[in-house]
C-alpha cells in the first residue's frame, strides 16, 4: 500500500493481537494507511479465544490458559490508556474485536465462551470508566473476516476514530448471527 507523502488527516491505529498473531489483519482492515505517522489515536485489540473443545475433555491447564488470555486483554487495555495519556491524545478510541461465536455460545465452546464473555463484560465496564478520559471503547463481534466483512469493520473503525461520543457499543459484523437469539 502506498503511504501518502502529505501529513495524514486521519489518526493512526495500532493493532494488538491477543491469543494469536493478528498482524495480517492490518492490511485486510486497511489500517496501514493510518499508521504512517502521527500519534496513535486508536488501538484495535484483536482477541482470539481458545479453539472449541468439549468441556469434559478440557484440563485445568486449559482453564489457566483462558485466564491468561483475559489477563492479556486487561494489560492491553491498560497499555492503550497509558499510551493515550502519555501522548496527550484528546480523544482516543479503543476497538476490541471478538469472534461472535465465542460470545453467542455454541457447543464445545465453554472455553471460548469464558473468554468471550469475560472480555465483553470487561469492555462494558471499561467503556463506562473511560468516558471520563474522553476515550471511547467499542466492541466488534466478527465472523471469519471475509473481504466484505473486513470492509465493514474498517468502516466501523473509522467511525469509532472520528466519533468519540460513540462508545460502549457492541456491533455484530458477521451477517447477523445474533438475530433471533438472546444476546449475551
Amino acid at each position, binding site marked *: 500500500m502506498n503511504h501518502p507523502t502529505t501529513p495524514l488527516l486521519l489518526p493512526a491505529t495500532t493493532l494488538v493481537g491477543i491469543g494469536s498473531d493478528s498482524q495480517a489483519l492490518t492490511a485486510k482492515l486497511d489500517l496501514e494507511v493510518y499508521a504512517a505517522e502521527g500519534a496513535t489515536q486508536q488501538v484495535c485489540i484483536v482477541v482470539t479465544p481458545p479453539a472449541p473443545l468439549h468441556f469434559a475433555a478440557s484440563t485445568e491447564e486449559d482453564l489457566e490458559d483462558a*485466564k491468561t488470555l483475559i489477563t492479556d486483554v486487561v494489560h492491553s487495555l491498560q497499555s492503550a490508556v497509558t499510551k493515550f495519556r502519555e501522548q496527550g491524545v484528546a480523544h482516543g478510541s479503543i476497538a476490541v474485536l471478538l469472534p461472535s461465536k465465542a460470545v453467542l455460545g455454541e457447543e464445545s465452546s*465453554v472455553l471460548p465462551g469464558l473468554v468471550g464473555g469475560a472480555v465483553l463484560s470487561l469492555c462494558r465496564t471499561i467503556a463506562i470508566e473511560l468516558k471520563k478520559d474522553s476515550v471511547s471503547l467499542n466492541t466488534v463481534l466478527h465472523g471469519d473476516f471475509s473481504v466484505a466483512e473486513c470492509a465493514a469493520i474498517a468502516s466501523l473503525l473509522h467511525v469509532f476514530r472520528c466519533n468519540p461520543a460513540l462508545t460502549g457499543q457492541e456491533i455484530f459484523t458477521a451477517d447477523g448471527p445474533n438475530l433471533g437469539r438472546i444476546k449475551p
Partner: protein
Amino acid sequence: MSVRTNKIALVTGAGSGIGAAITAMLSGEGYTVVLTDLPHVIEQHSHQTLPANVHPLPLDVGDRSSRIEAIETVASEYGRLDVLVNCAGLGRDARLTNITDRDLELTLDVNLIGALSLVRQALPLMESAGGGAVINIASRAWLGIFGSGAYSASKGGLIGATRSLALEIGALGVTANCIAPGYIETPLSATLPAQVLEKTLHSIPVGRGGVPDDIAAAVRYLVCEGSYVTGQVLTVCGGRSIGDPVSL
C-alpha cells in the same frame, strides 16, 4: 411444603450471606447439602448447630487441590451430586489502570476458573445421578459497572461459559444457568461507603435493597421448577439493571 429427597447439593461460599440462604433453602427442600467455604469459616460452623442434612466441608475454590479433594469427598461420601451452586466470590474494586495483577488473578481464580473447574469435575457425578442443575451466581456487574473491571470480567466469563455449557450438557439432563444479583444486603455490601450505598438504594425501582433470600428464591425456582430452563441469566436486582447505573 418441602419434599424429602435423597438428592445431594453442594454450595460454595455457603458460610454466610447469599450462600448461607441458598443452603438453608435447599436444606428445607430436603436436599442433603454440602456446605463449603474457606477452612476458617468452616471451623466457625463446627461450633454451631446445623440441620442434620447440612454437612460442612472446607473448600478453597481458588485452590486446585482443594477443589479436587472436595469433589472426591462428595463422590466417596454420597456417590452422586444433583445440584452445584457456585456462590463463592470476591471483589477487588479498582479502575482499569489501578487493577493489579495479583487482584486480577485472585478474582479470576475464585469467581471464574475455580467455579468452572468445579463444574467440570462435578459433571460425571451429575450425569451418573441422571441429571441435575448447575447454578452459577454471577452479578449484574456483567452488564458493566464503574470501577469493577476484574470483577465484571470474572462474572461475564461465568455467564459466557454457562451459555455454551448449557448447549453441551443439556442432553445429559443437566441444566446450567446463571443468577445475576444486584445489590444484596450482605456483610460484604455493608462495607460500601455511605454515599454510594444511599445512591444505590435510591436507584432500585422496587424501593428496597435485596436480601439473600431473594437469591435463594431464584435458585429454588431453577432447581425445583426450572428443568426446562437452561443457558439463561436470571437478573435479580429489583429492576436496577434497566435503570442508569452509570450515573452512580
